[in-house]
């Protein structure tokens, strides 16, 4: 029989290389004389990993689909074209039976080359794509439709491609459900201990490491707890061991405090034992990790890495959450020193761990659900399919792979699979608009008898609390705040208000007080700070919307009333009016508002006057109102009249005789008016009565 030749490609990160190697190993084991060639880039992970397994490696050029500067587009086009040409050369020379791509920019040139050659009949190789994540990466999404076979790791992903088969993710053989007691004995853990196994992958994960260490003081008091922490090995960029040690020192935990219930390992050798022994696993959301968790059938608390391309770790994790196999904590993204920093609050992590450990029934349920998602035959099924495709030229997808299994898996998982995928593709203002829509729908479900505004707000917040869609949106909003683009930050600020995220108040206050100057060109044209006028104005608007008042908010409002941008000043004054009943009386604010009534911008004057009516003392406010009642602008005079009304409504002492005389003197000629069209009014009235009577 002719020996088969296979081309494998994919890489950049390890997540694409591992499945390729797994497939290749399995195929090599089955077919003695098969030839393999791995095509990758010189700088990707594949350059290190592939030779270790004894596969020949060829190099081509490629480039990521990210453009920081306009020049990158040229570089991209150049590299990809060269890569495609070289790949075509390799394919023509090698004449393989199949090209198997596992995704990533590294696979792009090879897959494109094969597809191009196929259309001209110059290649007999089938294009096989393997997608590890819940939502396909850019390359796979692009070529998936024209490939001969798409192998997906999550059942829900099948719907996206015409020739997709759910095969699962090839997991190492040794990861499978094992006897828990036996595993605990092997690791030297007392049988009645509750084990939390936390790790961040072979390279460690800074967020998980730090969060876990921060959580330790809160977890100390638990009985029968055992924490096993896989910190990862030291790298040039990050030394997890030193990091954890420093943090432990800062937390004041000595070795003695931790002895007996906390152990840290640089490298976890026997993963299968640790999986089996664990009652709860804390891990990232990578496709490989999640597949192992399902293969081992263990419940997990996932902390997916935030804001990756396509947000794939978050979406993978959410798929497990949807199935009831895992719980998720989103990373909190904050802006720091020009970049972003992700973190998870240690106390929050401790609380979530505690909640889960206190509910062994739930843990058992999660474990069962995870096990049901497992695909133990992933590797064999995949290789079967590949071989059948190569041998027969096409595959009957209905009977292929885990078709029946997939249908069952699909049916058992509630909820729509792609609602998060849809949200994941939105960004900036589009995301904000969608969030607004969803919240509006939610508000419709609130109690219809009009209760107080505060109670409605609290109800709204409560309704959003448990909903995973809103939790996801809150995570995205937090991520937006740390974006380098001001438009995205602006959208994020608005979303904080829409989603009523009161806990984000400190970040808003930080944005408001951030006085980093804008670039020179912007300053020349009238700009002021990096956190530009719109952002500051929307911060104030959101603070007013959140309805929280504290000394920090007070300070922000006073500063806002003196801001260089007129809209910030006017919005601050309006915020004072909005938060009126929470503020009560305050001399500093009153003074600042009084000063604002002399502002050169009439918009600010109007808002300040209105706010004084709501929070001011009439003894101080009325003299100023009397001065302003001769203002040229009728809008100011209107605000003055309304302020009087507000003062009287609050029961403030006002000399009504003097007021009557002043109103007589006031110039009531105004250059503005609101038209009333009798025809339109009549139509409106009729329309109302029709609606009231239940008609359309």
């Amino acid at each position: 029989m002719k020996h088969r030749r296979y081309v494998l490609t994919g890489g950049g990160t390890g997540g694409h290389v591992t499945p390729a190697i797994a497939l290749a190993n399995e195929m090599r084991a089955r077919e003695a004389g098969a030839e393999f060639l791995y095509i990758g880039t010189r700088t990707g992970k594949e350059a290190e990993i592939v030779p270790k397994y004894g596969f020949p490696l060829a190099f081509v050029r490629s480039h990521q689909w990210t453009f920081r500067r306009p020049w990158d587009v040229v570089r991209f086009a150049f590299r990809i074209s060269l890569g495609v040409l070289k790949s075509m050369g390799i394919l023509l020379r090698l004449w393989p039976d199949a090209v198997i791509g596992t995704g990533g920019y590294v696979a792009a040139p090879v897959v494109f080359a094969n597809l191009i050659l196929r259309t001209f009949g110059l290649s007999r190789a089938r294009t096989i794509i393997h997608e590890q994540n819940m939502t396909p990466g850019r390359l796979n999404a692009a070529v998936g439709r024209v490939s001969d076979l798409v192998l997906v790791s999550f059942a829900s992903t099948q719907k996206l491609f015409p020739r997709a088969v759910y095969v699962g993710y090839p997991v190492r053989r040794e990861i499978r459900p094992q006897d828990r007691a036996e595993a605990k004995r092997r690791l030297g853990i007392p049988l009645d201990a509750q084990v939390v196994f936390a790790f961040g992958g072979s390279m460690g994960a800074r967020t998980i490491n730090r969060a876990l260490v921060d959580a330790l003081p809160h977890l100390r008091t638990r009985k029968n707890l055992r924490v096993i922490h896989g910190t990862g090995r030291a790298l040039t960029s990050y030394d997890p061991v030193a990091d954890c040690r420093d943090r432990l020192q800062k937390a004041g935990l000595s070795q003695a405090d931790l002895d007996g219930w906390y152990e840290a390992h640089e490298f976890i050798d026997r993963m299968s034992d640790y999986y089996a022994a664990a009652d709860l696993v804390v891990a990232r959301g990578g496709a490989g990790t999640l597949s192992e968790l399902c293969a081992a059938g263990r419940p997990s608390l996932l902390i997916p890495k935030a804001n990756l391309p396509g947000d794939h770790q978050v979406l993978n994790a959410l798929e497990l959450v949807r199935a009831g196999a895992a719980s998720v904590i989103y990373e909190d993204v904050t802006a720091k020193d020009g970049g972003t920093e992700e973190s998870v609050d240690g106390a929050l992590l401790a609380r979530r761990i505690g909640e889960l450990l206190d509910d062994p029934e739930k843990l058992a349920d999660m474990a069962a659900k995870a096990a049901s998602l497992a695909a133990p035959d992933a590797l064999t099924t995949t290789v079967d399919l590949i071989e059948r495709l190569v041998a027969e030229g096409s595959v009957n997808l209905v009977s292929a792979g885990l078709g029946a299994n997939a249908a069952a898996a699909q049916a058992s998982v509630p909820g729509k699979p792609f609602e998060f995928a849809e949200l994941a593709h939105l960004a900036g203002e589009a995301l904000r608009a969608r969030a607004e829509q969803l919240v509006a729908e939610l508000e419709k479900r609130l109690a219809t008898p009009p209760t107080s505004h505060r109670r409605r707000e609290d109800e709204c917040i409560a309704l959003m609390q448990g909903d995973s869609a809103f939790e996801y949106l809150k995570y995205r909003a937090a991520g937006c705040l740390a974006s380098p683009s001001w438009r995205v930050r602006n959208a994020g600020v608005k979303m904080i208000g829409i989603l009523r995220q009161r806990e984000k108040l400190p970040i808003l206050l930080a944005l408001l007080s951030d006085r980093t100057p804008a670039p020179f060109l912007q300053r020349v044209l009238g700009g002021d700070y990096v956190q530009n006028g719109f952002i500051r104005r929307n911060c104030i608007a959101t603070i007013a919307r959140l309805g929280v008042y504290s000394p920090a908010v007070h300070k922000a409002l006073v500063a806002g009333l003196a801001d260089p941008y007129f809209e910030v000043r006017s919005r601050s004054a309006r915020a004072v009016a909005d938060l009126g009943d929470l503020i009560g009386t305050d001399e500093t604010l009153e003074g600042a508002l009084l000063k604002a009534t002399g502002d050169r911008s009439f918009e600010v004057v109007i808002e300040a006057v209105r706010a004084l009516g709501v929070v001011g003392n009439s003894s101080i406010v009325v003299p100023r109102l009397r001065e302003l009642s001769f203002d040229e602008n009728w809008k100011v005079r209107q605000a003055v009249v309304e302020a009087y009304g507000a003062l009287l409504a609050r029961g403030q002492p006002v000399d009504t005789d003097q007021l009557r005389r002043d109103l007589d003197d006031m110039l009531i000629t105004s250059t503005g008016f609101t038209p009333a069209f009798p025809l339109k009014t009549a139509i409106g009235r009729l329309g109302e009565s029709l609606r009231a009577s239940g008609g359309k």
Partner: protein
Amino acid sequence: MFYHLGEALYRAYETHLADLPVIGPHLLLFARLLMYLSTRTIFAMLTSFLVTMVLGRRIIRWLHVHHMRDRVKDFGTISFTDKRGTPTMGGLLIICATLIPALLWCDLTNRFVHIVIAATLWFGALGAIDDYLKIFPWRGHVRGLGQWQKLFLQGLFGLLMGLVYLTPHLSPVTTKVASAFYVPFYKYPVFAHLGWWYLPFIVFVTMLISNSVNLTDGMDGLAIMPANFAVLVYGIMAYVMGNIVYSEYLRYDYLYGAGELLVFCAALFGGGIGFLWFNAYPAQIIMGDTGSMALGGILAALAVMLKQEVLFIIIGGVFVAETLSSFIQQKVGENFLGRRIFYRAPLHHQMEYRGLAETKVVIRLWIIAGLLAMIGLASMKLR
């Protein structure tokens, strides 16, 4: 038409009608009357006003019946709820009221007239398509033509007009005149022999002017009067430049046949007045993109043909101010800096925001437009 009739009558009289007993000399008088520029101007203006009166109500009803109603009047308007439902595409009325008298009273062999009628039709069609697509969107999402598509089509006309204007055989003026660039208040050309380098400038000016009128059309009666004033000033200038005595006296280049443009401008003026009859606040009809594009195109064509592009900054000052304020607020302020520069944009919204009612804003801008038109006329003498 009547011009040609008059011409034919005059020639016929010269050849064999001179001997007719009583009506002979009267026929001559009558023929020459029809050929005089001044009479045709007045008659054109009156005809166009008459046309608007006759067609006005019918067109409004026709547009309303065919659902050509304005959806959202002006996105920045403060009281926008009152505007919806007003029939749009009133520009059709203006175009009809301009073209019918133009065809009747203009000398149709005149190249100037060809260009300006072409401008009317081209921009009118462009605006009509835009209006239609705003109400009945083609693919569901995009309302009206895209920004770049509009710019492209405007620029295309500018290109064609420039090509015709700069080609010696097709152009109504000599190449020496065509390639000179003038500035108001200054007698001599700033650049004398630009040749084909003038073309990009023509394209740019066309795009600029037609868009500026489009932006200004945001309130009832706002765009039509300043456009009328500008058209009138250009018409007078056309008359001056087409008259060998006056052009020499005022040191303008003599453009043979430019006087015909006065007839066209008078027709447009009359049509504008007639349109204002219906468009005054509260409007029964709005001109829509059909009207504003057409007016802009005509103004652009006039500016280019009479070499008075820069003068548009003065006599079309209202349009320029609106465009400038909108540009600064949007491109510099909102998009680049992330803050507002003015309270609102364009200019008429700024005035409205500061507390002026719509009617007051419109009339004040008319006053300003009138003053600027007079300054523009003064520029003819002060050189």
